[in-house]
């Protein structure tokens, strides 16, 4: 293909890679050619729709075939206008869901990683079982948990309760939270485990020789050294939950104020055929996620700088 036409090898002498400026230019040229298809694809199916959605959000939804430029009126409608009594509940529900699921996932995932890091027997079994929730399609796990949370389902049977889980707000919140935590805590465990495994064991041995307790080792060695892996995991998960769609859509379909930003935008755009207002909601979601990622990144970096200057 494109690679065949580039022949920078001629300028190289035998016996070693001499980076002449021409060789470097040829390398850059090859890189450019290899990146062209990706560039085209990213522009056509990501950049174009994002820009187009922002564009759409500045227009009114067509009635009788005409839509006109309305500036930020759609945004005002969502924030303070007629849309605010569906937008803000969805905004807070999504935010709370993100915070609560992340807290549970971090604690459970971290615990799992610590266990997996020490387990010698059954390592393959543990690793394989941890991948099972990850591999199950969310649409399937949503139905599975809907079944578990059925009034006649296994959750009520185990706890001898009689809750109609998807029948009111908070039980629905917890049902969605548990379904999400089940599926993604193992993924956090894998990310944290990868971080744990690159900590050299000599550090622990040295600490032990110096008389450090296991608890001290955990706080002073494990936690600081695994921090960057944890931050990456937090970032991944946060971006994922802020755009959560499959679980709430299938489990509650937004009933009892369990609409998330994504389900709300979907319904406005596709079900109500209000593409402009729907695009407004999805653009707000998009910028919310960008800002959240930016803030987490900032906090994480400040923290790293702080600990670096301290020690």
């Amino acid at each position, binding site marked *: 293909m494109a690679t065949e036409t580039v022949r920078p090898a001629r300028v190289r002498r035998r016996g070693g890679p001499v980076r002449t400026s021409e060789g470097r230019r040829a390398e850059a040229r090859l890189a450019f050619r290899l990146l062209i298809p990706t560039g085209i694809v990213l522009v056509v199916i990501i950049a174009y729709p*994002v820009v187009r959605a922002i564009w759409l959000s500045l227009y009114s939804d067509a009635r009788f075939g005409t839509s006109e430029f309305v500036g930020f009126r759609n945004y005002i409608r969502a924030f303070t206008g007629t849309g605010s009594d569906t937008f803000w509940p969805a905004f807070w529900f999504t935010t709370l869901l993100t915070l609560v699921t992340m807290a549970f996932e971090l604690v459970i995932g971290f615990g799992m990683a610590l266990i997996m890091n020490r387990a010698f027997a059954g390592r393959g079994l543990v690793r394989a079982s941890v*991948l099972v929730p990850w591999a199950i399609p969310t649409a399937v796990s949503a139905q599975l948990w809907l079944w578990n949370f059925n009034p006649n389902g296994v959750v009520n049977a185990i706890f001898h309760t009689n809750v109609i889980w998807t029948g009111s707000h908070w039980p629905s919140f917890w049902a969605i939270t548990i379904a999400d935590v089940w599926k993604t805590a193992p993924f956090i465990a894998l*990310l944290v485990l990868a971080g744990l495994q690159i900590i050299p064991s000599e550090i622990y041995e040295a600490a032990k020789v110096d008389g450090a307790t296991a608890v001290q080792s955990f706080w002073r060695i494990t936690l600081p050294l695994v921090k960057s892996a944890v931050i990456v995991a937090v970032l991944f998960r946060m971006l994922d939950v802020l755009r959560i769609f499959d679980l709430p859509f299938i489990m509650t379909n937004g009933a009892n104020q369990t609409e998330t930003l994504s389900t709300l935008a979907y319904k406005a755009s596709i079900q109500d055929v209000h593409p402009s207002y729907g695009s407004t909601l999805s653009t707000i979601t998009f910028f919310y996620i960008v800002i959240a990622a930016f803030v987490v990144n900032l906090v994480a970096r400040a923290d790293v700088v702080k600990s670096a200057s301290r020690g």
Partner: protein
Amino acid sequence: MAVTTAPTRPAVRARPASRVTGFIRARAWLLLGVAFIVVYCLAPFYWMVASSLKANPLLDQALYPKHPTLLNFREVFSGDNNFQYALRNSVIIAGSVTILALLIGVFASYALARLQFRGKKLVLGAVLATAMFPLIALLTPLFQLFSNLGLIDTYPPMIVSDISFTLPLAIYVLTTFFSEMPWELEMAAKVDGATPGQAFRRVIIPLAAPGVFTSAIIVFIAAWNEFLIAYTMTQTLKAQPVTVAIAKFTGVSRFEQPFGTIMAAGVLVTIPLVILVLFFQRRIVAGLTAGGVKG
């Protein structure tokens, strides 16, 4: 966790006997922890399998199916549900997405992992940033585009849209694998007079095959599991993939869902993925996490 209970603090005072019991106790805790992980991950999956084998799971909460039956599985393929079409659609969609994403991604990843050029960090950053895009932000324009083209309820809208998140994923995983490969062999080939193109085909591709295969599995699973785009772009059995079919397995009212049948369909959809995961667990874990550690 387990270690905190072991009496390791006063190293001087620890007598052999207490050290042994401490060791055993730590091992017991560890075993308990391992058991917890396995149960946590597999119990819901087990319950899905068990429910799918019961004739009437709503009335039968026994821990295991006492009279296992394949009734639900037959119902999955019956005239009401026609799940075989959904399976066919999913195989075609996820397969096409995997091939396309890898075909495009492999070139980009080679450039990113191997070649020196200005703006490399920018490209890598852009690719990673697109991976975090909420699909919902792309959905409306893509839906409008494909309905204007009259392509709703056909495969192309889903295949093209799925590339938006599988291509960044493929590039991310492939770049990780590529940067860990023994590239000295490429240099050796070049010393022997091979062009970069030849080195790429004759040396790199065979070396890269395992990494590419793992990326293919990860991308395939991501495409197989996609729901939002498929739900938007399809209307009938003609193009609906399994995720949409399962979500729509509702009866007449939302309160009378055929859970046994839904669980059976869920088992059918998940088993191939679980088998893939069992066989390639080590590689998949490496592919999913290696990039994360480096930040």
